[in-house]
């Protein structure tokens, strides 16, 4: 059981980290609470399903095509819907909720409410210390790790990453230093949604694909970013692993655990916030005026 907990926690934590880091980035740079973040994850899964199962496109091409398409769609949505109402924070908030609902309803209309299955990209299991791990889960773990390293490289070793971090730190000063903050915000949207889309594509064969699959990860993701500290990437990563393990322990160790896994994870978040209102790695800033 211990090995089960270790592996499941790590795999789920990896997926959560992909989602949470994207969300955290977009919040840090553009101050957008993007409720539609996991809706893009759902769209990527549907896109992958359509290409792979309905149109019989080979796996890798289908994966890249769906990530690309969803990223392009996110930039389009940002330009058409979010940017016109950027000054009104509450309007941005419900615009993203409305977008998520629109995506959900469109998928419901075109694909129906049934659970759709996607064949695994790699079959077979690896047996390690008496635990059998499907290769698909290892693939998820590998992709998550690669993407996390790539994101770290992008943010800390490139000029774009420098611009993104500068904008997140202080939007006005970054603007004065000659950075095009609008373009930086757009690039951030693209990067963050691309991370979500990658997560959607790799988990699609393991989880079921249905129009409501965005709600549960949304809540978990929000808990993670609040737990880790809004806008903090390290916090998102640590928070993702914490929540991933807490969920795994609840499911394997408690009776009725499957029902309680969300509740326990969220209670942990509330407890952490009681002790540290700015999250584990958040910066306690003076009140903005």
């Amino acid at each position: 059981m211990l090995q089960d907990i270790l592996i499941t926690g790590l795999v789920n934590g990896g997926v959560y980290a992909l989602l949470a880091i994207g969300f955290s980035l977009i919040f840090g740079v553009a101050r957008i609470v993007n409720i539609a973040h996991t809706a893009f994850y759902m769209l990527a899964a549907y896109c992958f399903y359509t290409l792979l199962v309905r149109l019989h496109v080979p796996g890798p091409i289908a994966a890249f095509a769906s990530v690309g398409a969803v990223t392009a769609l996110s930039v389009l949505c940002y330009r058409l819907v979010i940017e016109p109402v950027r000054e009104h924070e509450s309007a941005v908030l419900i615009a993203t909720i409305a977008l998520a609902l629109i995506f959900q309803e469109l998928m419901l209309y075109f694909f129906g409410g049934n659970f759709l299955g996607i064949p695994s990209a790699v079959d077979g299991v690896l047996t390690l210390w008496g635990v059998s791990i499907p290769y698909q889960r290892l693939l998820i773990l590998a992709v998550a790790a690669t993407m996390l390293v790539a994101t770290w490289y992008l943010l800390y070793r490139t000029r774009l990453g420098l611009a993104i971090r500068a904008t997140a730190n202080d939007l006005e000063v970054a603007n004065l230093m000659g950075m095009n903050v609008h373009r930086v915000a757009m690039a951030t949207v693209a990067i963050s949604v691309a991370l979500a889309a990658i997560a959607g594509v790799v988990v699609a064969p393991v989880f079921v694909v249905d129009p409501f699959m965005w709600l549960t990860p949304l809540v978990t993701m929000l808990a993670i970013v609040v737990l880790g500290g809004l806008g903090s990437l390290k916090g998102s990563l640590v928070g993702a692993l914490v929540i991933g393990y807490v969920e795994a322990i609840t499911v394997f160790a408690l009776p009725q655990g499957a029902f309680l896994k969300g509740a326990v994870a969220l209670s942990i978040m509330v407890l952490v916030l009681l002790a540290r209102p700015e999250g584990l790695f958040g910066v306690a800033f003076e009140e903005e005026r």
Partner: protein
Amino acid sequence: MSNPLLFAARRSWVNLRNEVLVLPSRVLALVWVLLVLLVPLVYGDPYVLRILAMTCIFALFAASWDLLAGYAGQINFGHALFFGTGAYTSALVSLRLGVPPWLGVCAGAATAALAGFAVGFLCLRLRGSYLSLATLAFPLIATGVLFAFPDFSGGELGIGGVRSLALSRTANYYIIAVAMLLLVFGMWKIADSKIGLVLHAIRDDEVAVRAAGINTTRYKLAVFAMSAFAAGVAGALYAHFLRVAGPSSLEVALSFQVVIWGIFGGVATIYGPVAAVFILYPLTEWLGSFRAFGELRLLVFAVIVLLVLLFMPRGLTPWVRDKIETQCPRCKQRNASWRSACRLCAAPLAPTAAARA
């Protein structure tokens, strides 16, 4: 003819003429109240009555969200917790203990107020987005606990067979409508009073309010409890009206729905979210009655909200109010936009930028 009666009638007419009929927005509010109270007498179709009753329940719910999120700035993403607490408590109390529905509603509202107090207490140190995202967790924790104890809570099916409020359909409607009107006007009064002023100030700059010697903690806890109380009444009425209290009264979709209503109508107004519910809820139900639209109802709803927001980013009612009314530059009182001089101080009214646009 008794003189005091005549006097009272005359006085209320003068009040009506001088205070209500002079401003288009107040006339609209009066017409709305009359419509809510009179429509069932003229048009007693069971389906329409049902939609109207649901609209009233959700209007109360949305207004309670606005008191907390709009006025005090505590943008709550888990408002369904209070609705669900009210629904479940009143259903359990009236089913297990067999108390009459009105007592169940009171119990539901009281428990919801307690829940509001608890959530407010836990969230006292959180600000802005942290608060929003943390509050999202509470209804989900509650749902998880309910599902883990299905014998007590009925699990996914919820608690069925709750007694209805009254025997006849019309009486049912009137109980809901009158409760909604009383509570909405009560909240509007609170928001208009000194408490509302302090809440406004807390939203804009909490440190400054504390520096002015005001105990912001007490105000924040009070507004959480008041808002939760009203939401609990709405939830309890909902449980007694549909005669079932289920986990759908706690779900994320309902919390998001109330955020959409609130912001669509215009925050920090109380009447804005009410107007939004009275427009959006019957509209979506009506669209749902067409076969072609039935499945697309939520989609159409979301698209309408998105389009309206692109044109009125501050919400519907502030936009409408700017169109039909102007503010006097000298005494800051509101006037109908077609007047050329202020109704109170006779200063000439320049058309405002909003009215010209």
